[in-house]
């Protein structure tokens, strides 16, 4: 009898664990598929997508000489349409000098500091977002391809732990919404699966372009959890895990979201 009850309990626990499992690769959906027709139309048409204004700004910044080295991005990297093709699909990527992954925005600032000898751009500044959007745009349609090697694994695991860890006054984890309850409604809005396929993206609620870190802060705020300062390793690890979770999904940068 006791054995039967124990078995039943184990079965229950097992079922509980199964519901918190990762989304099977074939069932993954981009946030695009949860949007309304009008918002999709905005993203589909480059002349109606307000993020394209920033991409154009990024194209100008790419050519602009800056810093005491008086170099532009183009001086080293040439034409971004060829040199930056597929780059955003690989970020966050491992930085050998720092021995940790860095995201695309940080990579831009590392280049600024080391190659251009210019002051780093502030997180969420128009210029940094414009450059990230311009670089990201060159990978549109390409599959996300995060390196999953021994150097990256501890950071990937840290990101996964952050994703599944309950936090904040609501005691929620990211996984509870985005793995277990995607497709349901939260305050009338559909819960997406949380694949970062289109960052930096234009969010209608923000009325501007924003980075993935800004979006993560939004979620943490909603969970009434402590958010980290921009550029914190916690965000980069989570970004890394989310990109790995969205591996082989096509890049949509610059996307539009409600």
């Amino acid at each position, binding site marked *: 009898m006791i054995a039967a009850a124990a078995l039943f309990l184990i079965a229950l626990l097992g079922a509980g664990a199964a519901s918190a499992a990762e989304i099977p690769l074939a069932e993954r959906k981009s946030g695009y598929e949860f949007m309304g027709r009008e918002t999709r139309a905005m993203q589909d*048409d480059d*002349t*109606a997508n307000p993020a394209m204004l920033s991409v154009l*700004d990024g194209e100008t910044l790419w050519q602009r000489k800056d810093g005491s080295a008086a170099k532009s991005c183009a001086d080293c990297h040439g034409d971004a349409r060829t040199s930056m093709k597929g780059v955003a699909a690989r970020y966050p990527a491992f930085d050998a000098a720092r021995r940790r992954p860095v995201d695309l925005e940080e990579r831009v600032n590392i280049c600024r500091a080391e190659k251009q000898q210019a002051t780093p751009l502030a997180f969420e500044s128009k210029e940094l977002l414009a450059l990230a959007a311009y670089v990201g745009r060159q990978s549109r349609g390409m599959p996300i391809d995060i390196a999953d090697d021994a150097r990256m694994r501890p950071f990937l695991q840290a990101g996964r732990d952050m994703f599944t860890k309950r936090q904040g006054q609501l005691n929620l984890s990211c996984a509870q919404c985005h793995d277990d309850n995607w497709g349901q409604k939260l305050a009338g809005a559909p819960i997406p699966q949380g694949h970062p396929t289109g960052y930096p993206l234009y969010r*209608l609620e923000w*009325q501007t372009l924003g980075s993935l870190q800004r979006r993560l802060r939004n979620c943490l705020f909603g969970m009434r959890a402590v958010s980290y300062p921009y550029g914190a390793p916690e965000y980069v690890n989570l970004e890394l895990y989310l990109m790995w979770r969205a591996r082989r999904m096509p890049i949509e940068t610059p996307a539009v979201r409600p």
Partner: protein
Amino acid sequence: MARALINAPAKAKHGEAIEIKTMISHTMETGFRPDSTGRPIPRDIITELVCRYNGEEIFRAELFPAIAANPFLTFFTVATESGTLSFEWTGDNGFSATESVNITVE
């Protein structure tokens, strides 16, 4: 300098109705929002868009604080002759931007 995107057909048949899509980068600050210290942020919006077809005004729109950032306006006109569609946005704090595209009518 504000950035503008115009989507109008480069070629059209005479008498054809053509769709013109315009978008311009602008914060469209309503004047009703407070900043982090509680003071209201002054209004800064685009107040008007005028479109001229070979110098003749064919479309005019007044914009108000309730319009979202980066205003996107589309309208139709009839393709009558080859020439230039010019767009002029004006707004608060002396804001002014112009853009033009050419159209060939066959």
